[in-house]
C-alpha cells in the first residue's frame, strides 16, 4: 500500500535503514547478555523497588529504545530520499495513477552517442526500468512519436506485462518526429482517463531534437499543445541524447532535370550536410545503380552546418525504371548512420512526345510562333543526335484530332482560343498528370482564356489574363527578365550564372496577369515586377504561362543562347511522369495516381521491408489515387496496378539529421511550467522525474532532530534520577 504513494530514490539505503533499526535492539540484548552477577542479601528491598518502578521503567526504557530505533531508522530513510509520488498524496486510497509512456522511435534515436549505446537502447532501458518501478495497480498507456504518431496502447491498461512486451517489440523507425501528433494522442488519452487530476503522469523518452520542438519557442503551435498536456498531467522528460552529437547525412539525391533520358547521360546531384560541430573531412559517397557501384565521389572538407553538392552523370541503356542509391561513408565520428543513404527511383524515358500548337504559323519553321520553341526542345545538329523531347507541331484546327495522352506536354503558342470542350479536355489532361505550357502573343484572346482556362481558379491556367502591356508607349527600350523570389528550383541553375543571356533579353510587350490560383508561383518576372513565367499544379499535372512570346514578335528571348536550357527546364518540369515524384519519405504513404482504364483494378503495394498490402483508394480533384499504408522502412518498394508495376523509393527523413537537443530551460519554455527532466538515464528513478513528487528527506531530518532532543531529554531525566544525591544511601551508624 505504502509503495503506491511513496518510494525511495535509493531503495537500498532504505532497506539498510530498516536493518539499522535493529542495532539498538541488538545493543540492548548484548548489554543484557554482558551483565555481571553479584550475590545479594537485601533482595526483598530490590524486589519491592523493582515492583514499584516496573511500570515507570518499562515505559521509560522502551520509550527510550523506541526513540533510538526511530532516530536511526528515520535517519537512514532520510538518506534514502523518500518522496511522495506525483500522485502520491491523492493516490492514497483506491485511486490509481495513470502513467503514459511516450517513446520517441523516430530516426534520430538510432544515433549512437552514449558510450556505445544508441539513444534507442537507452530509452528502452529507461522505459523498462521505470515501468518496473511503477507501483502495482497503476495504469499504463504507450504512445510513439515517429510520424505519424501512434498510440499502440491508447487506453489505461493494467496489464503491465503486455505493456512491457509492447515496448520490447518496438524498433526505431526512419521517420521524422511527429510532436504535434504525439501531444494530440496524449491529450486524448488524458482526457479519456478515469484517473483523478493529480494522478496522471506523462513520461517522455526522447532525444528532444530542437527542430522537432520548433526551437523551443514558447509561441510555437507545439507549445500550445504541450501546455494543454501539462495542464492535464505531470510531465517528465528522460533525455536520451548528448547535446551536440556529430552527424553527417545525405540530404538529397536527385536528377538535375526531372526528366531522365535513356538517350543521353543524365546528371544527378547528391548533397551531403555536416550537422556536427567539427569539420567533416575525407568523406566519400558511393553511388549505386541497383547493386552495382557506379561512382565513388570524394568530398572536400565541409564546415559545421554547411553542405556540399556533388554532381555526377549516369547513363541508362534503355527506357525503364532504375533503382539508384547513394551511400555516405563519413567515418567513425558520425553518430547517425541511418541517414547516410538516399534512394532514388529513376524512370528513364526515350524521347518524350511534345505536342506544339502554333497559333500563328509562318512560312518557314522559325517564322511561326512555335518555331524557336520546337527547335529548343529538340536541339540537334544532325538527325542522329539524341534529343530528350520529340516535338510535334500542329495548327489549332488539328488539336482535336490528336490523342493528347500520348504527349507528355502540350504547348499552346499564341493560340487564339480553345473551345469549351477543348478546355474541359485540357482540364482533365492536366489533372491526370499532363503538362501544359501556354505562351502569349497577339492572337491570344485573354478574356476567353480567363473565363474558360482560368475559370476562377478551377481551370488549369495559373492566372487570369489581362490586357497587353507594351513598353513602346512608355518609351522604354524593353523590359529585362529576372528570377522571381522565392526562386523556383526549375531556374536555380540560372541563379548561379549572373551573366546568363537570359538576363540580357528584352521584352517589349506582354500580357498582364491578374488573379492567380492558389499555389501559383512566379518563376520569372520582368523589370517592372510583372510576372513573366508562372507555374501552378493542377491535379496530378502542372501548367505554366509565359506572358510574352517565344518568337521574336514581343521579345528577343528566343534568340538568346539560354533560351534552349530555359525551355528544356520548363518542359522537363511540366512533363508528365517526371521521375522526382517517385520518391517518398519514411512514415508517409506512397500515392500512385491511377491512369485511365485502371479504375476498378486492385493495387498491391510491396513495402521496402517486403511486407505487402492492398491499397486503399481516394479521390482528389475527381481523380482516383491508390494510397498505401505509411511506409516505415527505407529502400525500394513496388506498386502493382493490374499489369503496371511502378518502383518507388522511400528515404529517411531529412529532418532527423539535425541532432541538436533542447535544453531543460527551453523545454520549460515550451511547457510554460516546470517539468521533470533527467539526463542520466542509467540511474533514472521515478522520483527524479515526478514534478509533483515531494521529497520527504528534509521533513524526516526535522523529525530526527526532534527525536534526538526527546532522546536527550529522556536520557538526562533518567541520569538525573539515578545520580547519587547528597546524604542518601550513606551508612547509618548508631
Amino acid at each position, binding site marked *: 500500500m505504502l509503495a503506491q504513494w511513496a518510494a525511495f530514490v535509493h531503495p537500498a539505503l532504505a532497506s539498510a535503514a530498516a536493518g539499522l533499526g535493529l542495532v539498538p535492539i541488538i545493543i540492548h540484548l548484548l*548489554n*543484557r547478555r*554482558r*551483565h*555481571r*552477577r*553479584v*550475590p*545479594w*542479601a*537485601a*533482595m*526483598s*528491598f*530490590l*524486589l*519491592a*523497588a*523493582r515492583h*514499584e*518502578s516496573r511500570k515507570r*521503567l518499562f515505559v*521509560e*526504557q522502551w520509550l527510550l529504545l523506541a526513540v533510538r530505533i526511530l532516530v536511526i531508522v528515520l535517519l537512514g530513510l532520510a538518506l534514502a530520499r523518500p518522496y511522495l509520488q506525483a500522485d502520491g498524496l491523492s493516490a492514497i486510497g483506491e485511486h490509481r495513477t495513470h502513467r503514459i509512456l511516450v517513446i520517441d522511435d523516430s530516426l534520430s534515436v538510432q544515433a549512437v552517442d552514449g558510450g556505445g549505446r544508441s539513444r534507442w537502447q537507452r530509452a528502452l532501458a529507461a522505459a523498462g526500468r521505470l515501468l518496473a518501478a511503477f507501483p502495482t495497480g497503476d495504469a499504463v498507456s504507450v504512445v510513439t512519436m515517429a510520424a505519424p504518431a501512434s498510440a499502440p496502447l491508447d487506453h489505461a491498461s493494467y496489464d503491465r506485462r503486455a505493456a512491457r512486451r509492447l515496448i520490447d517489440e518496438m524498433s526505431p523507425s526512419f521517420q521524422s518526429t511527429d510532436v504535434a501528433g504525439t501531444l494530440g494522442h496524449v491529450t486524448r488519452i488524458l482526457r479519456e482517463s478515469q484517473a483523478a487530476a493529480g494522478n496522471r503522469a506523462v513520461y517522455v523518452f526522447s532525444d528532444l531534437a530542437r527542430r522537432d520542438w520548433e526551437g523551443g519557442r514558447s509561441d510555437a503551435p507545439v507549445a500550445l499543445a504541450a501546455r494543454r498536456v501539462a495542464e492535464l498531467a505531470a510531465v517528465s522528460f528522460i533525455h536520451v541524447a548528448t547535446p551536440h552529437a556529430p552527424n553527417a547525412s545525405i540530404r538529397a539525391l536527385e536528377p538535375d532535370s526531372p526528366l531522365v533520358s535513356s538517350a543521353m547521360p543524365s546528371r544527378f546531384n547528391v548533397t551531403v550536410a555536416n550537422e556536427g560541430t567539427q569539420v567533416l573531412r575525407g568523406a566519400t559517397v558511393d553511388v549505386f545503380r541497383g547493386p552495382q557501384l557506379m561512382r565513388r565521389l570524394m568530398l572536400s572538407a565541409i564546415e559545421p552546418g554547411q553542405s556540399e553538392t556533388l554532381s555526377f552523370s549516369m547513363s541508362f541503356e534503355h527506357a525503364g525504371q532504375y533503382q539508384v542509391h547513394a551511400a555516405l561513408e563519413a567515418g567513425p565520428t558520425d553518430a547517425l548512420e541511418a541517414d547516410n543513404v538516399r534512394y532514388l527511383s529513376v524512370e528513364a524515358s526515350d524521347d518524350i512526345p511534345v505536342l506544339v500548337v502554333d497559333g500563328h504559323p509562318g512560312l518557314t519553321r522559325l517564322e511561326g510562333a512555335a518555331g524557336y520553341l520546337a527547335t529548343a526542345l529538340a536541339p540537334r545538329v544532325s538527325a542522329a543526335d539524341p534529343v530528350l523531347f520529340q516535338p510535334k507541331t500542329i495548327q489549332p484546327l488539328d488539336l482535336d484530332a490528336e490523342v493528347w495522352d500520348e504527349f507528355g506536354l502540350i504547348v499552346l503558342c499564341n493560340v487564339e482560343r480553345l473551345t469549351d470542350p477543348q478546355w474541359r479536355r485540357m482540364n482533365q489532361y492536366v489533372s491526370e498528370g499532363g503538362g501544359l505550357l501556354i505562351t502569349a502573343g497577339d492572337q491570344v484572346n485573354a478574356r476567353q482564356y480567363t473565363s474558360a482556362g482560368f475559370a476562377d481558379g478551377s481551370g488549369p491556367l495559373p492566372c487570369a489574363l489581362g490586357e497587353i502591356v507594351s513598353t513602346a508607349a512608355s518609351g522604354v527600350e524593353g523590359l529585362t527578365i529576372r528570377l522571381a523570389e522565392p526562386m523556383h528550383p526549375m531556374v536555380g541553375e540560372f541563379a548561379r550564372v549572373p551573366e546568363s543571356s537570359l538576363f540580357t533579353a528584352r521584352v517589349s510587350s506582354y500580357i498582364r496577369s491578374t488573379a492567380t490560383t492558389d499555389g501559383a508561383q512566379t518563376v520569372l518576372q520582368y523589370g517592372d515586377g510583372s510576372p513573366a513565367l508562372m507555374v501552378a499544379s493542377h491535379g496530378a499535372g502542372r501548367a505554366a504561362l509565359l506572358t510574352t512570346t517565344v518568337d521574336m514578335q514581343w521579345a528577343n528571348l528566343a534568340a538568346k543562347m539560354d533560351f534552349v536550357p530555359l525551355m528544356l527546364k520548363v518542359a522537363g518540369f511540366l512533363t508528365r511522369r517526371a521521375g522526382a515524384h517517385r520518391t517518398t519519405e519514411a512514415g508517409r504513404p506512397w500515392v500512385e495516381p491511377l491512369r485511365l482504364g485502371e479504375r476498378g483494378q486492385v493495387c498491391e503495394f510491396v513495402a521496402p521491408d517486403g511486407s505487402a498490402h492492398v491499397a486503399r483508394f481516394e479521390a482528389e480533384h475527381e481523380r482516383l489515387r491508390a494510397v498505401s499504408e505509411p511506409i516505415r522502412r527505407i529502400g525500394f518498394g513496388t506498386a502493382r496496378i493490374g499489369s503496371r508495376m511502378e518502383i518507388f523509393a522511400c528515404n529517411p527523413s531529412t529532418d532527423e539529421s539535425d541532432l541538436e537537443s533542447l535544453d531543460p530551460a527551453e523545454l520549460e519554455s515550451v511547457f510554460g511550467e516546470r517539468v521533470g527532466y533527467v539526463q542520466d538515464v542509467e540511474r533514472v528513478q521515478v522520483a527524479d522525474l515526478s514534478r509533483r513528487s515531494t521529497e520527504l528527506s528534509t521533513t524526516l531530518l526535522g523529525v530526527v532532530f526532534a527525536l534526538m532532543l526527546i532522546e536527550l531529554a529522556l536520557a538526562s531525566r*533518567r541520569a538525573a*534520577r*539515578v545520580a*547519587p544525591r547528597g546524604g*542518601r*544511601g*550513606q*551508612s*547509618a*551508624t*548508631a
Partner: protein
Amino acid sequence: MTEAALDHRKYLDPAVLAKITSLQLRARLIVEGYFSGMHRSPHHGLSVEYADHRQYSQGDDLRHIDWRVFARTDKYYIKQYEQETNLSCMLLVDASESMSYRSPDSSLTKHEYAASLAAAVSYLALQQRDAVGLARFDEHLSTYIRPSNNSAHWRAIVTALEEGTGPGKTSIGRVLDELAERLSQRTLVFVVSDMFDDVGRIQRGLRHLRYRRHEVVVCNLWDRAELTFRFSGPTMFDGLESAGRILTEPRSLRERYLAEVASFRAQLQAGCSRLHVDYVTFDTSTALDVALSAYLASRAARIRQRSSRVLGGG
C-alpha cells in the same frame, strides 16, 4: 588518647580485624579498645542497669554513694544496680544465609561482624561476672548455650560463634518467640542480625520478649553496599536465601531501593521505640569498638536520665 591506645585502636579497624582469624583475640581486642576509650568511666561494665537507691550502711563501698542525692538531701544513699542482681545476658546471633553477604568494599561478612560483636559483648559481660548465653538461628534456633558467668564459658560461646552461616532463611519473629519461651529469668537479649524479615513478625517477637520482661537490644547489621546501592551497568542480582534473581540496570532502581531500605529501617526503629527496645544500626565497615562504645555511652546516658527522674520525683 594515649599513644598506646592509638596503637591498639589500629587493630580495631574492620579491615585489620578481618585478618585476625581467632575470634577470641578479635573480641579481646575490641573490648580492650572499648576500655581504653572509656578511661575512667563512672559506669561499671555492661550490667549498669540501675535498680534502686538505699540508705548507706557501714561497710558499703564509698564509690557507690550517690553524691548528687547527698547534695540535695544531705543523706547518704547508695545506688543499687542490677549487676548486683546477677544480670543474665543472651546473645541471639543471626546465622542465616543473608548474613554471609560481603560487598567487595567490605572486609567482613555481616556474620563475621556479628560474631565479633557478640564475642566482644560476651567477653565484656563475663569480665563483670555476668551470665552470658548464646543462641544462633536462621529459621529456627540452631545453637543454644545457656547463660553462665563461668569465665570458661566464653570459649564455648566463641567456638559456637565461629561456625559459619547456613543456607537457612532469616525468620526472626519465630525465633524470638522460641527464645521468649526458653528464657526463664529476666534477661538482656542482644539480637544481632540484618533483620531481613517482615517488620510485623519481628515486632510480634519483640513484644513477646518484652512481655516476659526481658530487655532487648536490636543490633541491625548492614553492609555498606546495602545502604548505598552504588551499582551501575546491567547487573544480575542473585538473591541469597533463595530469594530469586533480578537482571536490571541498578541505577534506575537505586532511588526506589534506598527508599525501601529507609522505610524498613524507619518502621523497625519505630516499632522498637514503641516496645522500649534499643535499636542500633551497625555498618560493617565501621570500627566495632567505636560502634560499641557509642551504643554503651548512649545507653548509660539514658540510665542516668532515668535515675535523675526517679530521685527528682522522690
